[in-house]
């Protein structure tokens, strides 16, 4: 019985194969045409349209937003506005949080440790290492996130982001990538891991791979605060104070745009070399504008994004804080492990206009971009012994405001070049471990995962090297 049926099924397959050859290419299109015609017929008899409907207003707005002349400048202006609000608004809550968590919180905990007669290594590991890294992440990262995410979500809900994709669609096609990559790129501005998963909306495997490999060039939210902080300290400080907010904003927008440029260049390079092929056709739909439900959006973006991202940062910050404390305090013949590592990395760092501390921080902070700056500060204090309060090496010092961070970094030998190159390297380096793992899961290929990880580092090193040469030539 089964055998007979299996034979019949085999027959069915053979007939289908034969028919496929006979009817061939047109089959798919014919079927779709018939479905469309049927849909049209039903819709025409079930939809009653009154002549004066509201489309016209939306269409007019869309004409401006997606126009060839205004589309791009408008996009940059809006992006700049969002950053400006974030930069200006984040400073005060940051100060307050730092005062509560770091100044008061740490001394409170240390006092508690003394009361409980904790050995100094334990209280050092727990409080000076783990707790402080966590407290740092909260006070430096939370305020910009809590401002940036809700605004970003509002733009998303309003329907603006798909229009950004629409504006960029043409360029994506020109470089041989899929127009929908514009959407996954925009999503990468939130989180690269999410952007990589979102590439599932691209149906051609070749174009999907391009979108995956280049998603890291979207500056993710773990890196925004780094950009904002460093821009404020090193670039905003170059101009009179009343201009510093605007100048820092321009710097951050420039770096983000540079990322987009790199995304196009890399996509273009890939479609000409490893991933040759023609871009496939698709239609990008502009969703209607919807008035966002503001309270709900605020609530959701704070719960879904801010808290989730912050939680992730804290989860990684605790162990990283512990590791930093350990490498800073375990000594081998009179020098800590961290110092050995920094000495090894320093020459490489200097060549590309960075330093050993930054490179080591990027190694320790692979799990989360959010903890790069806290790690950098902690290590800087260690090597340069600029710690303000604690005598213990590797303690994240108590920093109240951007000004003090600036002082510490400058004591660590940082210059304008270090600042600029850190911003560039923050854009062009390996994705965080979550994203790397996601890329592996999505591509199921070790080779492409390695490419996605190493390619940005190569770009980062080259770009930083060139900038360093130019800097020394000019100044």
């Amino acid at each position, binding site marked *: 019985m089964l055998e007979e049926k299996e034979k019949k099924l085999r027959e069915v397959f053979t007939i289908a194969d034969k028919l496929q050859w006979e009817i061939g290419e047109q089959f798919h299109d014919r079927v779709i045409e018939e479905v469309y015609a049927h849909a049209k017929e039903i819709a025409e008899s079930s939809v009653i349209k009154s002549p004066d409907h509201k489309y016209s207003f939306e269409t007019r707005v869309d004409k401006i937003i997606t126009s060839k002349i205004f589309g791009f400048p408008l996009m940059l202006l809006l992006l700049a506005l969002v950053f400006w609000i974030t930069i200006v608004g984040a400073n005060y809550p940051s100060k307050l949080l730092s005062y509560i968590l770091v100044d008061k919180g740490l001394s409170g905990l240390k006092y508690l440790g003394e009361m409980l007669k904790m050995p100094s290594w334990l209280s050092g590991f727990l409080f000076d290492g783990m707790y402080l890294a966590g407290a740092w992440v909260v006070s430096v990262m939370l305020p910009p996130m809590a401002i940036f995410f809700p605004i970003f979500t509002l733009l998303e809900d309003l329907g603006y982001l798909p229009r950004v994709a629409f504006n960029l669609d043409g360029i994506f096609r020109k470089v041989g990538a899929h127009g929908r990559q514009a959407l996954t790129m925009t999503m990468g501005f939130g989180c690269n891991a999410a952007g990589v998963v979102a590439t599932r909306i691209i*149906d051609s495997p070749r174009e999907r791979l391009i979108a995956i490999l280049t998603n890291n060039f979207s500056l993710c939210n773990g890196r925004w605060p780094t950009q904002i902080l460093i821009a404020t300290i090193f670039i905003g400080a170059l101009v009179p104070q009343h201009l510093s907010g605007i100048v820092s904003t321009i710097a951050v927008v420039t770096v983000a745009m540079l990322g987009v440029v790199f995304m196009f260049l890399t996509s273009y390079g890939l479609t000409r070399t490893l991933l040759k092929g023609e871009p496939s056709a698709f239609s990008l739909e502009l969703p209607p504008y919807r008035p966002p439900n503001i309270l709900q959006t605020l609530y959701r973006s704070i719960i879904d994004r801010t808290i989730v991202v912050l939680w992730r940062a804290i989860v990684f910050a605790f162990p990283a804080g512990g590791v930093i404390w350990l490498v800073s305090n375990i000594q081998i013949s009179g020098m800590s492990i961290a110092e050995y590592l920094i000495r090894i990395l320093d020459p490489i760092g200097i060549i590309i206009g960075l330093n050993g501390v930054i490179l080591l921080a990027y190694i320790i902070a692979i799990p989360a971009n959010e903890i790069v700056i806290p790690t950098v500060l902690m290590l800087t204090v260690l090597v340069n012994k600029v710690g303000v309060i604690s005598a213990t090496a590797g303690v994240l010092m108590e920093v109240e405001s951007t000004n003090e961070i600036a002082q510490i970094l400058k004591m660590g030998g940082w210059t304008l070049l270090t600042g600029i190159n850190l911003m560039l390297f923050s854009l062009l380096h390996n994705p965080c471990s979550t994203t790397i793992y996601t890329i592996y899961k999505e591509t199921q290929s070790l080779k492409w995962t390695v490419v996605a990880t190493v390619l940005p580092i190569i770009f980062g090193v080259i770009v930083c090297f060139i900038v360093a040469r130019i800097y020394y030539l000019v100044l």
Partner: protein
Amino acid sequence: MNTKCNDCPVSQNSLLKKNREDTSNFDYIIALAGNPNVGKSTVFNMLTGLRQHTGNWPGKTVDLAMGGFTYNGKKYKVVDLPGTYSLLSMSADEEVARDFILFENPDVTVIVVDATRLERNLNLVLQILDITDKVVLCVNLIDEAERMGIKIDDRSLSRQLGIPVVLTSARRNKGLDVLLKYIEEVITSKYICKPKRTKIKDKKISAAVDEIVKKLDEIFPDLINKHWIAMRLIEDDPGIKRWLENRLKEIST
């Protein structure tokens, strides 16, 4: 609808209990399908009480979100499929949506469509009707359509598609009580869907499809979507071939 209505025994909403993530021991499983950006996730959230973020752009939901509710004493599990425009182009998200409807065999598939763009949305509806019988059509964003001066004749739609049609505004919790009632009626076969499928007018193609349908009928008499499977076979879909082979083994064991 104000909150008082929700407690009123006459309202269907009083029969609804949102179970959020709890999908244990469910009696029925519902698939939620639709184009991107039609308020599908809003319907999902309203039914389950979850707060999945609903973004206003295509391709937002990529993974399957799941949630549950209890209605009229029965437990339902809801699966929010990725939003797609069609089931024929075979991107990863379309495959996820299609495979779920085809292989997981949901008790009912609710298709959410945008009242302001009904024609384009119907393309997907017709494709889904080729795969499964048990469908409820949820014409959402009806308030937005009204503002634009668009009226939808739900009875005409229902007649022409052969499935129950409900007009909703999920954001304002309008029409969801009727949706729940239809879901129950379709599952319990109180309402028997008789989907009007797209008849292929091209003689050569329809003859080819008919030939395969006839053969399939001899092997799998109880298969409801032979027509669609025949088309997939002509398009040389390896997933469908594998599925048929496995199904054959299942039947005989």
